[in-house]
């Protein structure tokens, strides 16, 4: 038998398959690869299901593991293991070699550089949910049941559809700065010029630049707040509103004493949801300033430390801090969600 020949052939075949799956250089190849991968995946799943369906009375655990197994394996590999691993790394130095106890945490909380990051994050998490929710609520109430409702809501919801990178570019252009002597190309500076004020470098001047970045996130999240709250407002029973009207409430009074209290749980859900999204905001800071000019936040600093400065220890620590900060928000969010559902 010519084993050498066979093993050579197998190696060649294996290499070819490997190349096909890993290397795709032109558009045609890439799209073909994507289609093949999907087809392969479907085929494997179908085969598993077919096998499990063979015997008349398949064992419960066998069926269950074919149905749930792939998902559980992937979740274990993709979320559980890395989360443990990262927590572990956060107690090690930048190369992950020497155990240094809580040093990374002490640094992340103590050093001025990181304190600024934490302060900025707090500012984001405080301002974005409140302002986005407030604007969304007011807008929802005003446009509710008007002739333009659908269009009006579509306009405000649209930023939810586009990427944060796209939104950041849109706003960078609004903030664009030229010297006072030349015509402005950024809308906001043009408005300042029309008002007789010197044009400003909005995304560079500290600490105000943080607010101009925050505006972008508010701009994105308001549509979310509007949609959820609008639905909550519609769910207020008609008789309550009618009764309040008969009692002489209208306009602002109706809004304050009937609308807001009735949708309280929905308000909390919206606030906490936006807070969670804001806590993890990365794209906006990265695109607008790259975290420079004193605008970094935890999620961005994590990236910078881990991948630009290659400090795995502090990077892991920042990720863990992010994780820990999210937990109370999630718990509160889930509890309020239950209430919203009960009311339904």
């Amino acid at each position, binding site marked *: 038998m010519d084993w050498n020949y066979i093993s050579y052939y197998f190696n060649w075949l294996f290499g070819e398959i490997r190349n096909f799956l*890993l290397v795709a250089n032109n558009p045609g190849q*890439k*799209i073909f*690869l*994507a289609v093949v*991968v999907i087809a392969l*995946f479907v085929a494997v799943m179908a085969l598993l299901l077919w096998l499990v*369906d063979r015997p008349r009375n*398949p064992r*419960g655990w066998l*069926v*269950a593991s074919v*149905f*749930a197994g*792939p*998902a*559980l394996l*992937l979740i274990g590999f*993709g979320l559980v293991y*890395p*989360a443990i*691993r*990262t*927590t572990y*790394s956060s107690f090690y130095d930048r190369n992950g070699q020497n155990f240094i106890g809580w040093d990374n945490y002490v640094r992340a909380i103590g050093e001025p550089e990181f304190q600024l990051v934490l302060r900025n994050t707090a500012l984001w998490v405080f301002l974005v949910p409140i302002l986005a929710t407030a604007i969304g609520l007011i807008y929802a109430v*005003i446009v509710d*049941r008007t002739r333009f409702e659908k269009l009006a809501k*579509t*306009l405000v*919801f649209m*930023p939810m559809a586009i*990427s944060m*990178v*796209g939104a950041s*570019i849109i*706003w*960078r252009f609004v903030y664009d700065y030229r010297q006072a002597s030349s*015509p402005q*190309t950024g809308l906001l500076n*043009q408005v300042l010029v029309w008002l007789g004020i010197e044009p400003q470098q909005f995304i560079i001047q500290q600490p105000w630049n943080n607010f101009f970045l925050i505006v972008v996130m508010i701009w994105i999240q308001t549509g979310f707040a509007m*949609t959820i709250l*609008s*639905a*909550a407002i519609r*769910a207020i029973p008609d008789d309550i509103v009618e009764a309040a009207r008969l009692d002489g409430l209208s306009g602002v009074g109706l809004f304050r004493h009937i609308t807001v209290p009735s949708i309280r749980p929905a308000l909390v859900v919206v606030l906490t*949801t936006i807070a969670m*999204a804001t806590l*993890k905001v990365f794209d906006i800071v990265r*695109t607008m300033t790259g975290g420079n000019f004193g605008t970094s936040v935890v*999620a961005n600093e994590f*990236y910078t430390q*881990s991948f630009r400065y290659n400090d795995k220890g502090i990077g*892991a620590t920042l*990720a863990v801090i*992010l*994780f820990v900060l999210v937990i109370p928000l999630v718990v509160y*969010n889930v509890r309020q969600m239950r209430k*919203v*559902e009960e009311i*339904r």
Partner: protein
Amino acid sequence: MTTSTPAVVQAPGRSSVPSRARKVRKRLSNPWASLAAVIIAALWTIPTIGLLITSFRPEVDITRNGWWNVFGNPRFTLDNYEQALFGGQTSLATYFVNTIVVTLPSVVIPIAIALLAAYAFAWIDFKGRDVLFVAVFALQIVPIQVTLIPLLTQYNQWGLSGSFWPVWISHSMFALPLAIFLLHNFMKDIPASLVEAARVDGAGHVKIFFRVLLPLLVPAIASFAIFQFLWVWNDLLVSLTFAGGRPNVAPLTVRIAEMVGTRGSDWFLLSAGAFISMIVPVIVFLALQRYFVRGMMAGSVKG
């Protein structure tokens, strides 16, 4: 974790049954309220319109003055788009293809896996089912940041770096907890009698899954698919980490974010580039608004 919000979102549908009070369409009676609405609508639209107009202006005009001057002197061109898509320095067309190639498997694979898992959690009895389900539910809160470095190390060890696989696998994994949870809820809403009837007829789990449940789940799948599609299409962090700037695999978002850093004042490229990356999500949004809103609500805190 907004997971069960679809329930909230369905409310408009339910209340669209015209009640007496609601049939009367109120007009904007309070002038201050109308003014506020107009201002908000303007603030939410004008920035986008400004960049859109800019993307069609000749490069010289863009650098000369602001986009509002276009109304006095309308001159438009498609050059910016041609430059951005096919120009040697940007060649966004390549990255556009990358985005599509990244997105397709990253949507199909997690949905298929999650559907099966959701079925197991909803309709198959096995030991430890409830504990596992709660664990999956709880894992939705893990921020992606926590997972990046260990995963990257692992992919490199497997020799996958530089290919699409790390991005596909990561997106699929990150989507699972939310997808399983949502689809499980929808599956649980299907009357048990339907499943029981099929069982009595001798159908096994596979048959029940495909014949009974799948057809009823189409709207739920559509909502999640749209959410996941947009999430992947618009994602920056996962692609930046696992695909880096490699022109062979990096999607549009990564490339455009990079252009902001290196060519931050070339607005003729940035404006066109931004809209090249936004056109598909916006079309999906306008065409499938209902599913879209439901999906966005359902997954709004993912990642």
